[in-house]
Structure formats: structure tokens, C-alpha cells
């Protein structure tokens, strides 16, 4: 099984995507001597400190200067290094956006930007630190691959895949630990989505933490007699068009779910595919054109309507349109 058995009564395990990132990066450092790691004064939070301890001469703390960090990474790439750049999502994708465009994506340089602290689940730090726009900001850039892993296992697989891929990649990780939904046999391929639960009435297309919320929603919907298919789209760009089109033709109704603005992110990407190839009734779960605010993760998920019951409401609505 690629996905843990549905209805599995084992206690749900949690893994931090950023913790996995730090461990895997330090391990990949052995296999890939060309990896260098750049950080902007957040090596503890981004877990790149593990790489620093193991390979001190290949780790560069650039201070609180993200634009310079991006440019330096581009320079490293031109001399054959594989730079991994990490900081919080808003400082990775937001603050140096134009530097990424000019110095990395326009020339197509082999730089991996792995952000942590994406989304509303950043929590108490509030609006300044909750990045709700990074998927859109990165997706719009030519040549950029955009990936949001759904759990720690997928994060590990993503890391192995992107280090082999030649070109710019943005990966969004989170502060909070995610429930583990994949087992070790799961295979990740860039640009391939995964059906994580079969269903024929409606398709829920989700990314990141929202994949596990969608699985919970699907279980509850089953009690109502609604068979929801759940698809994990971890590669938001280039998106798995075929899987999304086929799913929409099978179920005839689509709900997207992401911990990101409904403008520019997964919901927009899916709407772009379906409106051109297979117009389908849709609802988008995500941040509805709002700024963030301080609060606990649980409070924020409720306030911004990102919990399983909100997905269920969206499913009921979209089914009315079928």
C-alpha cells in the first residue's frame, strides 16, 4: 500500500516536515558533495543546523539578508554547486521574489528553495509570519517547480527527487507536525499526483496538511453515503493535469483544499486546468483573501475554515451543482 490503510485504527503518527528536511539534507550531503546550504539566521527553525554541524564549510549563514542570500545561491549554482536555500516561507518567497525571478528562474539556475513555516499554522507569530501567498508567488515564475509535501514521508521522497532534478525548485514545509499518511513504500515523482482515497461522488484535491484533513472529511462523508475521492497534489507546478481531468470526469464535482490563499494557489491551478479542459462545478477551501492573525494552530484552522467539517460543507454545496 502506498497510503496507510483507510480505517486503520493504529494511533496516528506525526512527523515534522521541516525536521525530516533537516535530517535528509544532512544525509544527502554525503552523497552530493556539491550541495551547499544557505540560511538567513533561522538555521535552528529550518533544521539546516544539522547540515551545518556535519558540513561546516559547506554551510553559509547569510544573516538577515534574504535578497543577498538568493543572489549568492545563484552564484553558487553557476559554478556547479547545488544550493539549498532555507528560511521562513514569507522571507524565502516573498521578500526576495524579484531576486528569484531575475537571478534564478529567468536563467533557470539549479537552486532549491526549501521554505519552512508556510501557511496559517505558523500560529502565534501572526500575520507578518504566516505566508499565505508563496505558492502563487512561486507558481507564476517561469521554470519554477513548486512542491508542497503532504507529510514527513513524502518530504523525504521529495528531497531525493529534487536533488536529482536540474533546475529551480520551491518546496513549502511547515512549522507544525503533520499526521503521517504515506508508508515507506510510497513513490514520489515530480509532477505526479496521487489518489489517496478512492471515491466516485466527488473529488477533493488537496495539498500539504489539507490532505490529511481531506481524508478525515472523506471518512465522515462516507457515513453520509457520499464517496469522496481524495487526491494529493504535492507538485502544484507542473500540475498533474491528466489525473485532475480524469478525476473530474469520473466524479463530476471538485473541491480543492490548501492552507494558502484561494487566489493563486492550488485552487487556482486546478481551476485553470478544469476550466480549459473539463469544466466542472468547484469549490475552493483556503484563506479567503484575508491576512492572518495570531492564535493557536487549532484556533486558526477553525477561524479560517480549514477543518474537515468545512471541507464537508463545501462538498455538500458542490454536489448541489452536479
Amino acid at each position, binding site marked *: 500500500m502506498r497510503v496507510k490503510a483507510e480505517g486503520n485504527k493504529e494511533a496516528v503518527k506525526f512527523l515534522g516536515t521541516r525536521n525530516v528536511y533537516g535530517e535528509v539534507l544532512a544525509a544527502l550531503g554525503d552523497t552530493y558533495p556539491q550541495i551547499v546550504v544557505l540560511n538567513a539566521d533561522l538555521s535552528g527553525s529550518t533544521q539546516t543546523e544539522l547540515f551545518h554541524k556535519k558540513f561546516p564549510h559547506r554551510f553559509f549563514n547569510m544573516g538577515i*539578508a534574504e*535578497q*543577498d542570500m538568493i543572489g*549568492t545561491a*545563484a*552564484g553558487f549554482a553557476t559554478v*556547479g*554547486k547545488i544550493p539549498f536555500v532555507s528560511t521562513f516561507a514569507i522571507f524565502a518567497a516573498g521578500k526576495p521574489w524579484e*531576486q528569484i525571478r531575475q*537571478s534564478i528562474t529567468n536563467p533557470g539556475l539549479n537552486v532549491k528553495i526549501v521554505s519552512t513555516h508556510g501557511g496559517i499554522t505558523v500560529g502565534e507569530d501572526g500575520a507578518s509570519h504566516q505566508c499565505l501567498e508563496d505558492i502563487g508567488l512561486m507558481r507564476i515564475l517561469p521554470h519554477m517547480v513548486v512542491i508542497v509535501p503532504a507529510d514527513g514521508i513524502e518530504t523525504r521522497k521529495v528531497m531525493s527527487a529534487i536533488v536529482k532534478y536540474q533546475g529551480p525548485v520551491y518546496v513549502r514545509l511547515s512549522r507544525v507536525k503533520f499526521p503521517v499518511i504515506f508508508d515507506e513504500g510510497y513513490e514520489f515523482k515530480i509532477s505526479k499526483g496521487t489518489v489517496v482515497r478512492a471515491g466516485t461522488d466527488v473529488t477533493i484535491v488537496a495539498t500539504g496538511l489539507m490532505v490529511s484533513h481531506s481524508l478525515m472529511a472523506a471518512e465522515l462523508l462516507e457515513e453520509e453515503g457520499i464517496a469522496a475521492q481524495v487526491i494529493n497534489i504535492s507538485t502544484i507546478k507542473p500540475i498533474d493535469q491528466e489525473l485532475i481531468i480524469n478525476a473530474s470526469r469520473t466524479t463530476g464535482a471538485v473541491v480543492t483544499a490548501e492552507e494558502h490563499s484561494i487566489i493563486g494557489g492550488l485552487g487556482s491551478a486546478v481551476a485553470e486546468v478544469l476550466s480549459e479542459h473539463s469544466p466542472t462545478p468547484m469549490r475552493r477551501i483556503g484563506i479567503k483573501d484575508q491576512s492572518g492573525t495570531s492564535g493557536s494552530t487549532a484556533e486558526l484552522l477553525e477561524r479560517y475554515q480549514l477543518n474537515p467539517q468545512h471541507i464537508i460543507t463545501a462538498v455538500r454545496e458542490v454536489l448541489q451543482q452536479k
Partner: protein
Amino acid sequence: MFSKTPLEELPAIARQIRIDILTMLTHAGSGHTGGSLSAVEILTVLYFVKMRHDPSNPQWPERDRFVLSKGHAAPALYTVLARCGYFNHEALMTLRKMGSILQGHPDMNATPGVEISTGSLGQGLSIANGMALGLKLDKSSSRVYVLLGDGEVQEGQVWEAAMSAAHYKIDNLCALLDFNGLQIDGPVRKIMNIEPLPDKWSAFGWDVCQVNGHDPGAILDALHRAEKVKGKPSLIICETLKGKGISFFENKVEYHGVSPTDKELEEALKELCG
């Protein structure tokens, strides 16, 4: 490897490069005249004398690297690259045209010999730092040169990069600053004063010297000197004239971002060839 040109031949090469720049800009119908002309001697000394590079093998791993951070001076760089033999001289007349290998601003994927795409100001020094640090990791003896504009150092990223270069003791890096004193909207001093430049860069931990940016011998001496500086990055402030070489372009802010008319070209060529 490109064989070094005797210093006494550089003035004639520089004059030829000015003719090329003006002709290609007039043909293109747009582009940055003033800041291309001010950088001619700097680029000529780097490419014809100082840098180790091989036009027949642009990706030669042991080459020195050059970053044109003030990417709008692309016509000067293209002309020098063509004269070195990176591509056919005729290509210069395709500047800024659809499908050309010579884009409006440098594109590393379009032009042989261009190390990195630039054009959006403020980013080249960070890139040069990354190149230099990467080369150091590989224990390479290659050096990295970067040309900054004076208006460009108003960008905050330049100072982030200035800090990084000193912090990481990047002594295989030499920055040159084309200090022509003018930016699009007027004199740099009036738009947003950047001086005192030597004090600022010294305070940031750099070795700084100032030379006449149109004197090939002085530029070369400064480059040799910079190579001997260990444990810190070097900056050569090159005092230049915007529009250098053509009397009616010199020190004229109006010629920052426009190309010569046919009549102006004719007059300019008379001056250069006369």
C-alpha cells in the same frame, strides 16, 4: 586561453569598441549609450589583459568570471566579447532584435561568454560572492570580477552583499565601480547621494582604491594590486565620464538611456576616427 594584449594597444581597441557600441546602438534604435561608453576601458583591460579566459571554450572551468551587475551596459560587454572572439562581429547589429543572441540586458543562456543574466540592478555582487565562494570550495585559483554602477549602489542588496563578502573574507573577488556620477534622473549626488564611497566600503571591511577609469595602466595596476590583497574583498572605484569619448555625449544625463540618432552617430564617428 586568450593571450594578453600589450597595454599600448588598448587605446586603439577601446576606440574601436566605442565605434562598435555607437553603431550597434544606433542600429538597435534604443539602449544605454552613456553608461556603456563609461565602462569601455574597464572592460577592455579585464578582457584583453587581466582575465584568464578562452573565447573558444566559454565554459573552461579554470576561467576567471565576470559579472556585469550594471546590466544596461550590455552593449559594451557584447562588443568586447565579440572582439575577443566569443561570437561573430556581425551579431552586434542584431542587438535588441527579436531572436538575437544579444538581448537588451545580458542573458547567460543567449550569449556565449555571458556568465550570468543581469539587468535588474543590485544583484550582481551577491552573485559574484556565490561564484567566488563556490570556486574557493573547489580550491580553484579563478578570480571573480564584478562591475557595479554608481547609481546601482543605492540598492540595499549591494550593501547586504558588501557585508557578506567581507564576512566570508572573499579575497578571490574584485568589484569595480563605474563612478560616472550620473543616473537616469540626474546627478547621483542630487538623486540619492552615495558618497563618501571609499569610507563606506572601507567601513564595510573592503580594501578600496580609486583610479582614473579611463586610464588602462592605472586600472591594470589596481587589478594587480587587488589580487595581492588577502583576507578581504577589493573594490576599485573607477572615476569615469558618462558618454566618454564623444564630446557631445560626455557627462550628459540625457544620454543615459537613449541611443544616438543617425546624425549623432555620423558626428561621433568623425570624432573617434578623426
